[in-house]
């Protein structure tokens, strides 16, 4: 059992940022500021050249970070530094090849060493998870399972084997802000609840406090990425203040339910 459960002691607000966008120093400050502003867990993207599950906003963030020359080792080093400053759970969000090319065992060992709690790999579905899961589990780290609106009867199988938390993808398509989320999130969460007690957090498309509190009330938490990355893209080096204000508003909305 990892540290992740601690994030869900209250309805969780989980912001996402891409490491190295606009720079690793700013990412470090963002992590500290978002934690102080009420984030219960932070999802940290390790940039990848070809982020196939992302919409254009986070694609661009990956491109900016890669262009800045950020490597997986640089991200680990930054986490090692920031771990002394924040104690909320932290999870990576990256792609299979980033972990695989680093060496799954080497990646998991380094992740444990710097104090990351889990990893989300959107291109590793249930059928391919074991290769990663078995290694991470040996380091007491969770490989987070995702369920999607198309998962249907797969939800029970996926959730039954899930650890850490279940990432409920709210909508079809890739990451990005959406005006309306039409999926029956409540039904998906019920299916998860039938087979496991681990928390469920909803992501994809959430940008307003109303959406965040609604999604968190249907589940155990709300994940917000593109809306934050948009602020970072707009503000650049000066993004910490505006992001902190946004995170505070969103976290308050989630925590008030």
């Amino acid at each position, binding site marked *: 059992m990892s540290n992740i459960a601690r994030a869900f002691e209250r309805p969780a607000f989980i912001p996402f940022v891409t490491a190295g966008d606009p720079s690793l120093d700013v990412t470090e400050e963002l992590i500290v500021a978002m934690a102080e502003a009420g984030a219960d867990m932070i999802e940290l993207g390790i940039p990848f050249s070809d982020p196939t599950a992302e919409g254009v906003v986070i694609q661009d963030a990956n491109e900016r970070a890669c262009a800045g020359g950020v490597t997986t080792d640089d991200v680990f080093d930054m986490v090692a530094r920031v771990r002394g400053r924040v104690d909320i759970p932290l999870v990576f969000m990256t*792609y*299979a*090849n*980033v972990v*695989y090319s680093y060496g799954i065992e080497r990646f998991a060992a380094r992740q444990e060493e710097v104090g990351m709690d889990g990893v989300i790999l959107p291109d590793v579905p249930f*059928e391919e998870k074991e290769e990663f899961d078995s290694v991470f589990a040996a380091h007491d780290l969770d490989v987070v399972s995702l369920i999607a*609106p198309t998962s249907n009867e797969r939800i029970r199988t996926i959730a039954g084997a899930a650890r850490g938390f279940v990432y409920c993808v709210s909508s079809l398509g890739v990451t990005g802000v959406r005006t309306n989320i039409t999926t029956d999130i409540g039904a998906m969460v019920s299916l998860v609840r039938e087979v496991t007690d681990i928390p469920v957090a909803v992501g994809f498309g959430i940008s307003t406090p109303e959406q965040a509190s609604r999604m968190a009330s249907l589940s155990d938490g709300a994940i917000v990425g593109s809306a934050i990355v948009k602020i970072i893209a707009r503000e650049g080096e000066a993004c910490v203040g505006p992001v902190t204000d946004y995170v505070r508003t969103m976290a308050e909305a989630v925590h008030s339910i």
Partner: protein
Amino acid sequence: MEASTTSRGRFGVHGGQYIPETLMNAVIELEEAYDRYRDDPDFNAELERLFNEYANRPSLLYFAKNMTEDLGGARVYLKREDLNHTGAHKVNNVLGQALLAKRMGKTRLIAETGAGQHGVATATAAALMGMECVVYMGTEDMERQALNVYRMRLLGAEVRGVSSGTGTLKDAVSETFREWTARIADTHYCLGSVMGPHPFPTMVRDFQAVISREARQQCLDATGKLPDAVLACVGGGSNAIGSFYHFIDDKSVRLIGCEAAGRGVDTYETAATMATGSMGIFHGMKSYFCQNEYGQIAPVYSISAGLDYPGIGPEHAWLADTGRAEYVPVTDDEAVDAFEYLSRTEGVIPAIESAHAVAHAMRLAPTMTPDQIIIVTLSGRGDKDVAAIARYRGEDLHE
């Protein structure tokens, strides 16, 4: 030990289904449909009718007499996929997938394209079968292959430019996957090569295997024996796997894939995956990829938009691992020389992709004897490349 208990579609350690959960039921549905129809007599009769009456199959196995005499070694035969309707081998796969999609009740085809050949083939099948069609193409490639862009539009398809990343084939593949996650119910992703998640590498190979099924029999009929070597160009590897497949059990037949080395395998401007790549996981599969030490996919380069891809299909990776097939790099310069050579020598203008295989035949044939036989798959015709080759030679020619 690289093991996975529930993973499907493996070629040795390669292959698998590394895709977002959102797409899993779509590929499972596709796999089930393919399993149902692959041995279905009606489906196969319909596909064969389309192959023969629409796509101009069987394609010729042509004895390249002038080339053979000039090179002074092995007898060279050309498997003329360039004579297929739409001018390339791509139509074999597309007719199969479009027919399958139709049986699955899908009304819309989406596809990626590099050189534009697969996009044209998909647009053609969509027009024939009354389906909607959207083709994703890197903006860099749209410029290189402007004529094919217009051709797709003429056929009723919408062409959407992809400017992310390097604006080439890999980015078009990524964008088509993204689009598929947004719209699954009525849409089939008509993937153009033996890559991506299972069942694509197997299904596309089966549809392309018609190349070697015909070529093997044609060679036996014409010469009374099997070839000594089969050569094909390799990007993702669909014409190559189609050319190899029915020869895999014929151990005396060398199978040689010709990769695009661009400006050379010792430069960064290359797309030679086997020569310069390493194991990785990308675009739904475990295979070999051009990448850096942190797994960032490399911005590959080749004069040929169709071979300008940083990976290779998982079955090729396995054929390489087992030593059953060989993979050799061919540079831009060598391919352009071969493009011109075949045009002058045989009166056949090959696609610049196919010219990579011709170039290796020019190296290999003189080292062999006249009782030996090489089959070179001409995967496509070269009309689309004429202007680009002219520019490569310094002429100011634009379409």
